[in-house]
Protein backbone atom coordinates (compact mmCIF):
# COMPACT_ATOMS: atom_id res chain seq x y z
CA UNK A 1 0.00 0.00 0.00
CA UNK A 2 1.70 3.15 -1.14
CA UNK A 3 1.48 6.49 0.57
CA UNK A 4 0.02 8.18 -2.51
CA UNK A 5 -3.01 5.93 -2.26
CA UNK A 6 -3.46 6.79 1.42
CA UNK A 7 -3.18 10.52 0.74
CA UNK A 8 -5.62 10.27 -2.14
CA UNK A 9 -8.19 8.39 -0.09
CA UNK A 10 -7.72 10.66 2.94
CA UNK A 11 -8.33 13.71 0.79
CA UNK A 12 -11.53 12.20 -0.58
CA UNK A 13 -12.69 11.11 2.88
CA UNK A 14 -12.08 14.57 4.32
CA UNK A 15 -13.86 16.17 1.38
CA UNK A 16 -16.87 13.86 1.72
CA UNK A 17 -16.94 14.43 5.48
CA UNK A 18 -16.80 18.20 5.02
CA UNK A 19 -19.47 18.06 2.34
CA UNK A 20 -21.79 16.00 4.54
CA UNK A 21 -21.30 18.36 7.48
CA UNK A 22 -21.79 21.42 5.31
CA UNK A 23 -24.92 20.01 3.74
CA UNK A 24 -26.32 19.01 7.14
CA UNK A 25 -25.62 22.52 8.40
CA UNK A 26 -27.22 24.22 5.48
CA UNK A 27 -30.12 21.79 5.47
CA UNK A 28 -31.17 23.33 8.78
CA UNK A 29 -31.09 26.73 7.11
CA UNK A 30 -32.89 25.42 4.03
CA UNK A 31 -35.48 23.69 6.17
CA UNK A 32 -36.38 26.94 7.87
CA UNK A 33 -36.27 28.88 4.66
CA UNK A 34 -38.42 26.39 2.73
CA UNK A 35 -40.84 26.10 5.62
CA UNK A 36 -41.16 29.86 5.70
CA UNK A 37 -41.62 30.22 1.95
CA UNK A 38 -44.24 27.50 1.80
CA UNK A 39 -46.14 29.37 4.49
CA UNK A 40 -45.83 32.74 2.75
CA UNK A 41 -43.26 33.93 5.27
CA UNK A 42 -39.67 35.12 4.81
CA UNK A 43 -37.71 32.94 7.21
CA UNK A 44 -34.35 33.68 8.84
CA UNK A 45 -32.87 36.81 7.25
CA UNK A 46 -30.94 38.57 10.01
CA UNK A 47 -27.65 36.66 10.30
CA UNK A 48 -25.80 37.32 7.08
CA UNK A 49 -27.26 37.73 3.62
CA UNK A 50 -30.57 35.85 3.49
CA UNK A 51 -29.80 34.38 6.90
CA UNK A 52 -26.88 32.38 5.51
CA UNK A 53 -24.93 32.64 8.75
CA UNK A 54 -27.86 31.31 10.74
CA UNK A 55 -26.46 27.73 11.03
CA UNK A 56 -23.26 29.15 12.54
CA UNK A 57 -25.27 31.15 15.03
CA UNK A 58 -27.31 28.05 15.89
CA UNK A 59 -24.12 26.03 16.31
CA UNK A 60 -22.56 28.65 18.57
CA UNK A 61 -25.74 28.71 20.61
CA UNK A 62 -25.84 24.93 21.01
CA UNK A 63 -22.14 24.85 21.97
CA UNK A 64 -22.58 27.40 24.72
CA UNK A 65 -25.71 25.85 26.24
CA UNK A 66 -25.61 24.15 29.60
CA UNK A 67 -24.66 20.48 29.51
CA UNK A 68 -27.59 18.96 31.35
CA UNK A 69 -27.66 15.39 32.61
CA UNK A 70 -30.94 13.89 33.77
CA UNK A 71 -30.96 11.74 36.89
CA UNK A 72 -30.05 8.55 35.12
CA UNK A 73 -27.96 5.52 36.06
CA UNK A 74 -26.71 5.25 32.48
CA UNK A 75 -24.51 8.30 32.02
CA UNK A 76 -22.25 6.44 29.61
CA UNK A 77 -25.13 5.29 27.40
CA UNK A 78 -26.58 8.77 27.58
CA UNK A 79 -23.42 10.10 25.94
CA UNK A 80 -23.12 7.12 23.61
CA UNK A 81 -26.57 7.72 22.04
CA UNK A 82 -25.86 10.89 20.07
CA UNK A 83 -22.36 9.58 19.33
CA UNK A 84 -23.76 6.49 17.57
CA UNK A 85 -26.43 8.52 15.79
CA UNK A 86 -23.83 10.92 14.47
CA UNK A 87 -21.22 8.35 13.43
CA UNK A 88 -23.67 6.11 11.60
CA UNK A 89 -25.06 9.12 9.79
CA UNK A 90 -21.57 10.08 8.65
CA UNK A 91 -20.04 6.72 7.68
CA UNK A 92 -22.75 5.85 5.18
CA UNK A 93 -21.35 8.38 2.74
CA UNK A 94 -18.17 6.28 2.32
CA UNK A 95 -19.63 4.09 -0.41
CA UNK A 96 -21.45 6.73 -2.44
CA UNK A 97 -19.86 7.31 -5.84
CA UNK A 98 -19.60 11.09 -6.10
CA UNK A 99 -18.33 11.11 -9.63
CA UNK A 100 -16.43 9.25 -12.30
CA UNK A 101 -12.64 9.10 -12.52
CA UNK A 102 -10.73 12.35 -12.70
CA UNK A 103 -7.19 12.62 -14.02
CA UNK A 104 -4.89 14.62 -11.70
CA UNK A 105 -1.10 14.53 -11.22
CA UNK A 106 -0.85 11.86 -13.89
CA UNK A 107 -3.09 9.51 -11.98
CA UNK A 108 -6.69 8.35 -12.24
CA UNK A 109 -8.57 9.20 -9.07
CA UNK A 110 -11.97 7.71 -8.40
CA UNK A 111 -14.31 10.17 -6.68
CA UNK A 112 -15.46 7.67 -4.10
CA UNK A 113 -14.07 6.90 -0.68
CA UNK A 114 -14.26 3.18 -1.21
CA UNK A 115 -15.83 1.03 -3.90
CA UNK A 116 -16.65 -2.10 -1.94
CA UNK A 117 -18.63 -4.68 -3.87
CA UNK A 118 -21.32 -5.00 -1.18
CA UNK A 119 -21.99 -1.27 -0.76
CA UNK A 120 -25.76 -1.72 -0.83
CA UNK A 121 -25.54 -4.20 2.03
CA UNK A 122 -23.17 -1.83 3.82
CA UNK A 123 -25.66 1.03 3.50
CA UNK A 124 -28.50 -1.09 4.82
CA UNK A 125 -26.37 -2.37 7.66
CA UNK A 126 -25.31 1.08 8.77
CA UNK A 127 -28.88 2.37 8.46
CA UNK A 128 -30.02 -0.38 10.81
CA UNK A 129 -27.36 0.56 13.35
CA UNK A 130 -28.65 4.13 13.19
CA UNK A 131 -31.69 3.21 15.23
CA UNK A 132 -29.41 2.17 18.11
CA UNK A 133 -28.40 5.79 18.54
CA UNK A 134 -32.01 6.74 19.13
CA UNK A 135 -32.80 3.64 21.18
CA UNK A 136 -29.80 3.85 23.51
CA UNK A 137 -30.06 7.59 24.02
CA UNK A 138 -33.76 7.42 24.77
CA UNK A 139 -33.35 4.44 27.09
CA UNK A 140 -30.59 6.19 29.02
CA UNK A 141 -32.67 9.36 29.30
CA UNK A 142 -34.79 7.67 31.97
CA UNK A 143 -37.88 9.40 30.62
CA UNK A 144 -41.07 7.65 29.61
CA UNK A 145 -41.72 9.90 26.63
CA UNK A 146 -38.22 9.32 25.30
CA UNK A 147 -38.64 5.59 25.70
CA UNK A 148 -42.00 5.57 23.94
CA UNK A 149 -40.47 7.58 21.14
CA UNK A 150 -37.60 5.11 20.84
CA UNK A 151 -40.04 2.20 20.74
CA UNK A 152 -41.91 3.91 17.94
CA UNK A 153 -38.75 4.80 16.07
CA UNK A 154 -37.33 1.30 16.20
CA UNK A 155 -40.54 -0.49 15.27
CA UNK A 156 -41.03 1.98 12.43
CA UNK A 157 -37.51 1.49 11.15
CA UNK A 158 -37.70 -2.30 11.36
CA UNK A 159 -41.02 -2.34 9.50
CA UNK A 160 -39.93 -0.05 6.74
CA UNK A 161 -36.50 -1.59 6.29
CA UNK A 162 -38.21 -4.74 5.05
CA UNK A 163 -40.09 -2.93 2.31
CA UNK A 164 -37.01 -0.87 1.51
CA UNK A 165 -34.86 -3.96 1.13
CA UNK A 166 -37.46 -5.69 -1.04
CA UNK A 167 -37.71 -2.63 -3.28
CA UNK A 168 -33.94 -2.65 -3.53
CA UNK A 169 -33.90 -6.32 -4.57
CA UNK A 170 -35.70 -5.56 -7.83
CA UNK A 171 -32.95 -3.05 -8.62
CA UNK A 172 -30.27 -5.58 -7.73
CA UNK A 173 -31.93 -8.14 -10.01
CA UNK A 174 -31.48 -5.72 -12.88
CA UNK A 175 -27.95 -4.60 -12.07
CA UNK A 176 -26.65 -7.97 -10.92
CA UNK A 177 -24.29 -6.21 -8.55
CA UNK A 178 -24.35 -4.86 -5.01
CA UNK A 179 -21.88 -2.10 -5.77
CA UNK A 180 -23.33 1.40 -6.03
CA UNK A 181 -20.66 2.23 -8.58
CA UNK A 182 -21.78 -0.67 -10.78
CA UNK A 183 -25.42 0.36 -10.41
CA UNK A 184 -24.50 3.87 -11.56
CA UNK A 185 -22.53 2.58 -14.52
CA UNK A 186 -25.42 0.31 -15.48
CA UNK A 187 -27.79 3.26 -15.40
CA UNK A 188 -25.40 5.32 -17.49
CA UNK A 189 -25.50 2.60 -20.14
CA UNK A 190 -29.14 1.52 -20.06
CA UNK A 191 -31.06 4.51 -18.71
CA UNK A 192 -32.09 5.55 -15.23
CA UNK A 193 -33.74 3.06 -12.93
CA UNK A 194 -36.65 5.35 -12.18
CA UNK A 195 -37.99 4.71 -15.70
CA UNK A 196 -37.66 0.93 -15.37
CA UNK A 197 -38.72 0.64 -11.75
CA UNK A 198 -41.17 3.45 -10.89
CA UNK A 199 -42.93 1.30 -8.30
CA UNK A 200 -39.67 0.41 -6.57
CA UNK A 201 -38.77 4.09 -6.62
CA UNK A 202 -42.01 5.10 -4.91
CA UNK A 203 -41.67 2.37 -2.29
CA UNK A 204 -38.04 3.27 -1.66
CA UNK A 205 -38.91 6.96 -1.41
CA UNK A 206 -41.69 6.37 1.12
CA UNK A 207 -39.45 4.08 3.14
CA UNK A 208 -36.63 6.57 3.18
CA UNK A 209 -39.03 9.11 4.65
CA UNK A 210 -39.74 6.60 7.41
CA UNK A 211 -36.06 5.72 7.86
CA UNK A 212 -35.02 9.33 8.32
CA UNK A 213 -37.90 10.01 10.72
CA UNK A 214 -39.28 12.79 8.56
CA UNK A 215 -42.88 13.93 8.28
CA UNK A 216 -45.32 12.26 7.55
CA UNK A 217 -43.60 9.49 9.52
CA UNK A 218 -42.03 11.54 12.31
CA UNK A 219 -43.94 9.74 15.03
CA UNK A 220 -40.73 9.38 17.01
CA UNK A 221 -40.67 13.08 17.69
CA UNK A 222 -44.25 14.21 17.48
CA UNK A 223 -44.32 17.17 19.78
CA UNK A 224 -48.00 17.04 20.66
CA UNK A 225 -47.73 13.54 22.07
CA UNK A 226 -44.15 12.98 23.16
CA UNK A 227 -42.71 16.42 23.97
CA UNK A 228 -39.49 16.30 21.94
CA UNK A 229 -39.38 12.54 21.44
CA UNK A 230 -36.10 10.74 21.99
CA UNK A 231 -34.09 13.92 22.51
CA UNK A 232 -36.37 15.36 25.19
CA UNK A 233 -33.70 15.11 27.90
CA UNK A 234 -30.83 16.21 25.73
CA UNK A 235 -29.28 19.64 25.71
CA UNK A 236 -26.23 21.43 24.39
CA UNK A 237 -24.15 19.75 21.69
CA UNK A 238 -25.54 16.26 22.37
CA UNK A 239 -28.90 17.62 21.29
CA UNK A 240 -27.11 19.29 18.41
CA UNK A 241 -25.62 15.94 17.37
CA UNK A 242 -29.06 14.34 17.24
CA UNK A 243 -30.44 17.14 15.11
CA UNK A 244 -27.32 17.12 12.99
CA UNK A 245 -27.52 13.37 12.53
CA UNK A 246 -31.08 13.73 11.32
CA UNK A 247 -30.06 16.19 8.63
CA UNK A 248 -26.97 14.19 7.71
CA UNK A 249 -29.23 11.15 7.33
CA UNK A 250 -31.48 13.16 5.09
CA UNK A 251 -28.53 14.12 2.92
CA UNK A 252 -27.26 10.55 2.73
CA UNK A 253 -30.63 9.05 1.91
CA UNK A 254 -31.10 11.71 -0.78
CA UNK A 255 -27.71 10.70 -2.15
CA UNK A 256 -28.66 7.02 -2.16
CA UNK A 257 -31.98 7.75 -3.83
CA UNK A 258 -30.15 9.75 -6.49
CA UNK A 259 -27.52 7.09 -7.02
CA UNK A 260 -29.88 4.14 -7.13
CA UNK A 261 -32.77 5.62 -9.09
CA UNK A 262 -31.70 8.84 -10.80
CA UNK A 263 -28.45 7.61 -12.29
CA UNK A 264 -26.06 9.05 -9.70
CA UNK A 265 -23.49 11.25 -11.38
CA UNK A 266 -24.81 10.40 -14.84
CA UNK A 267 -26.41 13.20 -16.80
CA UNK A 268 -27.74 13.26 -20.37
CA UNK A 269 -24.84 13.79 -22.76
CA UNK A 270 -22.15 12.63 -20.36
CA UNK A 271 -20.41 10.50 -22.99
CA UNK A 272 -20.26 13.44 -25.38
CA UNK A 273 -18.76 15.69 -22.71
CA UNK A 274 -16.22 13.02 -21.75
CA UNK A 275 -15.22 12.56 -25.38
CA UNK A 276 -14.98 16.23 -26.33
CA UNK A 277 -14.11 18.19 -23.18
CA UNK A 278 -12.09 15.60 -21.30
CA UNK A 279 -12.96 13.34 -18.41
CA UNK A 280 -12.09 15.90 -15.75
CA UNK A 281 -14.80 18.30 -16.84
CA UNK A 282 -17.13 15.35 -17.30
CA UNK A 283 -16.48 14.21 -13.75
CA UNK A 284 -17.00 17.69 -12.34
CA UNK A 285 -20.24 18.14 -14.26
CA UNK A 286 -21.25 14.67 -13.10
CA UNK A 287 -20.61 15.62 -9.50
CA UNK A 288 -22.67 18.77 -9.97
CA UNK A 289 -25.46 16.70 -11.53
CA UNK A 290 -25.45 14.36 -8.53
CA UNK A 291 -25.37 17.35 -6.22
CA UNK A 292 -28.38 18.91 -7.97
CA UNK A 293 -30.30 15.63 -7.66
CA UNK A 294 -29.44 15.44 -3.96
CA UNK A 295 -30.55 19.04 -3.44
CA UNK A 296 -33.80 18.27 -5.19
CA UNK A 297 -34.47 15.35 -2.88
CA UNK A 298 -33.61 17.40 0.20
CA UNK A 299 -36.02 20.04 -1.02
CA UNK A 300 -38.56 17.31 -1.65
CA UNK A 301 -38.24 16.11 1.96
CA UNK A 302 -38.98 19.62 3.19
CA UNK A 303 -41.70 20.17 0.64
CA UNK A 304 -43.51 17.01 1.77
CA UNK A 305 -43.06 17.99 5.39
CA UNK A 306 -45.26 21.02 4.91
CA UNK A 307 -47.79 19.22 2.74
CA UNK A 308 -48.73 15.97 4.42
CA UNK A 309 -49.80 15.76 8.05
CA UNK A 310 -48.39 13.10 10.35
CA UNK A 311 -49.70 9.56 10.07
CA UNK A 312 -51.41 7.86 12.95
CA UNK A 313 -49.41 5.00 14.39
CA UNK A 314 -51.74 2.25 13.20
CA UNK A 315 -51.88 3.84 9.74
CA UNK A 316 -48.10 3.80 9.67
CA UNK A 317 -47.99 0.08 10.44
CA UNK A 318 -50.82 -0.61 8.02
CA UNK A 319 -49.00 1.18 5.22
CA UNK A 320 -45.72 -0.52 5.97
CA UNK A 321 -46.80 -4.12 6.43
CA UNK A 322 -49.99 -4.43 4.44
CA UNK A 323 -49.32 -2.21 1.46
CA UNK A 324 -45.65 -1.53 0.84
CA UNK A 325 -44.30 -5.03 1.49
CA UNK A 326 -46.87 -6.82 -0.75
CA UNK A 327 -46.30 -4.18 -3.41
CA UNK A 328 -42.55 -4.68 -3.21
CA UNK A 329 -42.96 -8.46 -3.50
CA UNK A 330 -45.25 -8.03 -6.51
CA UNK A 331 -42.65 -5.72 -8.02
CA UNK A 332 -39.97 -8.37 -7.61
CA UNK A 333 -42.20 -10.95 -9.32
CA UNK A 334 -42.98 -8.62 -12.21
CA UNK A 335 -39.30 -7.73 -12.59
CA UNK A 336 -38.41 -11.39 -12.67
CA UNK A 337 -41.04 -12.23 -15.28
CA UNK A 338 -40.05 -9.31 -17.50
CA UNK A 339 -36.38 -10.16 -17.23
CA UNK A 340 -37.02 -13.76 -18.24
CA UNK A 341 -39.28 -12.75 -21.12
CA UNK A 342 -36.99 -10.12 -22.64
CA UNK A 343 -33.60 -11.75 -22.27
Amino acid sequence: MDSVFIIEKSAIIVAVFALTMLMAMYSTWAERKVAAFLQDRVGPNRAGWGGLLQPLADGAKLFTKEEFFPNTPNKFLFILGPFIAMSTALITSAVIPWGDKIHVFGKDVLLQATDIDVSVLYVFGVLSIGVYGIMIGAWASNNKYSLMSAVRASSQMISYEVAMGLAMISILMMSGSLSLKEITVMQANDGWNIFYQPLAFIIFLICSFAETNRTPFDLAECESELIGGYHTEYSSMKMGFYLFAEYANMFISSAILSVVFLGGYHFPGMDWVNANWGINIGAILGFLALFAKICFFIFFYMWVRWTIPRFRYDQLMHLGWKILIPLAVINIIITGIVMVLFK
Partner: protein
Amino acid sequence: MSVQQISLSGRKIEVSNKEMTFLERIYLWTILKGLWTTLKHLFRRKVTIKYPEETRTMSPVYRGQHMLMRDDEGRERCTACGLCALSCPAEAITMKAAERKPEEKHLYREEKYAEIYEINMLRCIFCGLCEEACPKEAIYLTKSKKIVQANYEREDFIYGKDKLVMPLEMAIKNTQSNKVN
Protein backbone atom coordinates in the same frame (compact mmCIF):
# COMPACT_ATOMS: atom_id res chain seq x y z
CA MET B 1 -82.98 28.20 -3.44
CA SER B 2 -83.40 26.62 -0.04
CA VAL B 3 -81.84 27.95 3.14
CA GLN B 4 -79.45 25.01 3.37
CA GLN B 5 -77.72 25.95 0.14
CA ILE B 6 -77.08 29.59 0.95
CA SER B 7 -73.45 30.36 1.62
CA LEU B 8 -72.77 33.80 3.00
CA SER B 9 -69.01 33.52 2.65
CA GLY B 10 -69.24 31.89 -0.76
CA ARG B 11 -66.81 29.22 0.46
CA LYS B 12 -69.24 26.64 1.76
CA ILE B 13 -68.13 23.11 0.98
CA GLU B 14 -70.54 20.25 1.36
CA VAL B 15 -69.16 17.50 3.62
CA SER B 16 -69.89 14.04 2.40
CA ASN B 17 -69.08 10.50 3.43
CA LYS B 18 -69.18 9.06 -0.04
CA GLU B 19 -66.92 6.16 -0.97
CA MET B 20 -63.52 7.26 -2.15
CA THR B 21 -62.71 6.55 -5.75
CA PHE B 22 -59.80 4.30 -6.62
CA LEU B 23 -57.64 7.31 -7.43
CA GLU B 24 -58.32 8.79 -4.03
CA ARG B 25 -57.74 5.51 -2.27
CA ILE B 26 -54.25 4.94 -3.60
CA TYR B 27 -53.54 8.35 -2.05
CA LEU B 28 -50.61 9.22 -4.29
CA TRP B 29 -52.60 11.35 -6.68
CA THR B 30 -54.09 13.38 -3.83
CA ILE B 31 -50.61 13.82 -2.39
CA LEU B 32 -49.44 15.19 -5.73
CA LYS B 33 -52.34 17.63 -5.71
CA GLY B 34 -51.36 18.71 -2.20
CA LEU B 35 -47.75 19.14 -3.28
CA TRP B 36 -48.90 21.34 -6.14
CA THR B 37 -50.85 23.50 -3.68
CA THR B 38 -47.84 23.98 -1.43
CA LEU B 39 -45.56 24.58 -4.39
CA LYS B 40 -47.76 27.44 -5.51
CA HIS B 41 -47.26 29.01 -2.09
CA LEU B 42 -43.50 28.90 -2.61
CA PHE B 43 -43.78 31.61 -5.25
CA ARG B 44 -46.54 33.63 -3.68
CA ARG B 45 -45.98 37.15 -2.38
CA LYS B 46 -44.72 37.08 1.21
CA VAL B 47 -46.97 38.71 3.76
CA THR B 48 -44.23 39.32 6.32
CA ILE B 49 -43.51 42.91 7.30
CA LYS B 50 -39.81 43.15 8.17
CA TYR B 51 -40.51 45.12 11.28
CA PRO B 52 -37.69 47.43 12.28
CA GLU B 53 -37.13 48.42 8.64
CA GLU B 54 -40.77 48.45 7.60
CA THR B 55 -43.73 49.33 9.76
CA ARG B 56 -47.35 48.59 9.21
CA THR B 57 -49.54 51.44 8.14
CA MET B 58 -51.85 52.03 11.07
CA SER B 59 -55.57 52.23 10.72
CA PRO B 60 -56.89 55.77 11.32
CA VAL B 61 -58.78 54.48 14.35
CA TYR B 62 -55.93 52.40 15.77
CA ARG B 63 -55.57 53.16 19.46
CA GLY B 64 -51.90 53.37 20.32
CA GLN B 65 -49.82 55.53 22.61
CA HIS B 66 -51.68 58.53 24.00
CA MET B 67 -50.90 62.05 22.93
CA LEU B 68 -51.64 65.22 24.83
CA MET B 69 -52.66 67.69 22.14
CA ARG B 70 -51.63 71.25 21.49
CA ASP B 71 -53.88 73.83 19.90
CA ASP B 72 -53.13 75.95 16.82
CA GLU B 73 -50.93 78.29 18.80
CA GLY B 74 -48.94 75.42 20.24
CA ARG B 75 -50.46 75.64 23.71
CA GLU B 76 -51.29 72.53 25.69
CA ARG B 77 -55.01 71.93 25.69
CA CYS B 78 -55.18 69.92 28.91
CA THR B 79 -56.71 71.72 31.84
CA ALA B 80 -56.19 68.95 34.37
CA CYS B 81 -59.87 68.51 35.09
CA GLY B 82 -59.28 64.85 35.91
CA LEU B 83 -62.19 63.47 33.90
CA CYS B 84 -59.87 61.17 32.00
CA ALA B 85 -58.50 59.75 35.23
CA LEU B 86 -62.06 59.34 36.51
CA SER B 87 -63.25 57.59 33.39
CA CYS B 88 -60.26 55.29 33.17
CA PRO B 89 -61.45 51.75 33.97
CA ALA B 90 -57.90 50.61 34.61
CA GLU B 91 -57.00 53.59 36.80
CA ALA B 92 -53.90 54.18 34.77
CA ILE B 93 -53.92 57.98 34.74
CA THR B 94 -52.73 60.29 37.49
CA MET B 95 -52.18 64.01 37.33
CA LYS B 96 -51.36 67.01 39.42
CA ALA B 97 -52.90 70.34 38.50
CA ALA B 98 -51.19 73.73 38.76
CA GLU B 99 -52.29 77.32 38.17
CA ARG B 100 -50.99 79.09 35.11
CA LYS B 101 -48.72 82.07 35.76
CA PRO B 102 -49.29 85.19 33.65
CA GLU B 103 -46.01 84.69 31.78
CA GLU B 104 -47.03 81.15 30.85
CA LYS B 105 -49.98 82.19 28.67
CA HIS B 106 -48.21 81.01 25.54
CA LEU B 107 -47.69 77.55 27.03
CA TYR B 108 -51.09 76.56 28.35
CA ARG B 109 -54.47 77.36 26.90
CA GLU B 110 -56.53 77.28 30.08
CA GLU B 111 -55.85 78.92 33.44
CA LYS B 112 -55.24 75.57 35.01
CA TYR B 113 -52.89 73.01 33.57
CA ALA B 114 -51.44 69.61 34.34
CA GLU B 115 -48.10 70.02 36.06
CA ILE B 116 -47.64 66.27 36.20
CA TYR B 117 -49.55 63.96 33.88
CA GLU B 118 -48.68 60.28 34.04
CA ILE B 119 -50.12 57.22 32.36
CA ASN B 120 -49.07 53.78 33.49
CA MET B 121 -48.82 51.91 30.22
CA LEU B 122 -48.85 48.56 31.99
CA ARG B 123 -52.26 49.35 33.45
CA CYS B 124 -53.71 51.00 30.38
CA ILE B 125 -56.02 48.81 28.33
CA PHE B 126 -56.20 51.24 25.40
CA CYS B 127 -59.99 51.41 25.53
CA GLY B 128 -60.10 55.08 24.58
CA LEU B 129 -62.54 56.13 27.32
CA CYS B 130 -60.18 58.96 28.37
CA GLU B 131 -60.42 60.29 24.85
CA GLU B 132 -64.22 60.16 25.01
CA ALA B 133 -64.35 61.77 28.44
CA CYS B 134 -62.07 64.70 27.64
CA PRO B 135 -64.07 67.97 27.33
CA LYS B 136 -61.08 69.85 25.88
CA GLU B 137 -60.12 67.41 23.12
CA ALA B 138 -56.76 67.20 24.81
CA ILE B 139 -56.03 63.49 24.81
CA TYR B 140 -56.08 61.18 21.80
CA LEU B 141 -54.95 57.62 21.29
CA THR B 142 -55.13 57.81 17.51
CA LYS B 143 -52.80 60.71 16.81
CA SER B 144 -49.36 59.47 17.86
CA LYS B 145 -49.43 56.48 15.48
CA LYS B 146 -47.09 54.74 17.88
CA ILE B 147 -47.18 51.46 19.73
CA VAL B 148 -46.02 51.53 23.32
CA GLN B 149 -42.56 50.02 23.23
CA ALA B 150 -41.35 47.10 25.29
CA ASN B 151 -39.02 47.83 28.17
CA TYR B 152 -37.12 46.19 31.00
CA GLU B 153 -38.25 48.06 34.12
CA ARG B 154 -41.76 48.57 35.42
CA GLU B 155 -40.93 52.20 36.24
CA ASP B 156 -40.12 52.83 32.61
CA PHE B 157 -43.71 52.18 31.66
CA ILE B 158 -45.00 55.19 33.56
CA TYR B 159 -45.07 57.77 30.81
CA GLY B 160 -44.86 61.39 31.87
CA LYS B 161 -45.51 64.57 29.98
CA ASP B 162 -42.11 64.32 28.27
CA LYS B 163 -43.38 61.37 26.26
CA LEU B 164 -47.04 62.21 26.02
CA VAL B 165 -47.26 65.84 24.95
CA MET B 166 -47.37 66.45 21.23
CA PRO B 167 -43.91 67.40 19.92
CA LEU B 168 -43.63 71.07 18.97
CA GLU B 169 -42.58 70.31 15.39
CA MET B 170 -45.77 68.33 14.91
CA ALA B 171 -47.83 71.22 16.33
CA ILE B 172 -46.08 73.68 14.00
CA LYS B 173 -46.74 71.43 11.04
CA ASN B 174 -50.40 71.05 11.99
CA THR B 175 -50.80 74.80 12.33
CA GLN B 176 -49.23 75.42 8.94
CA SER B 177 -51.42 72.87 7.21
CA ASN B 178 -54.49 74.31 8.94
CA LYS B 179 -53.62 77.79 7.66
CA VAL B 180 -53.30 76.53 4.09
CA ASN B 181 -56.72 74.96 4.36
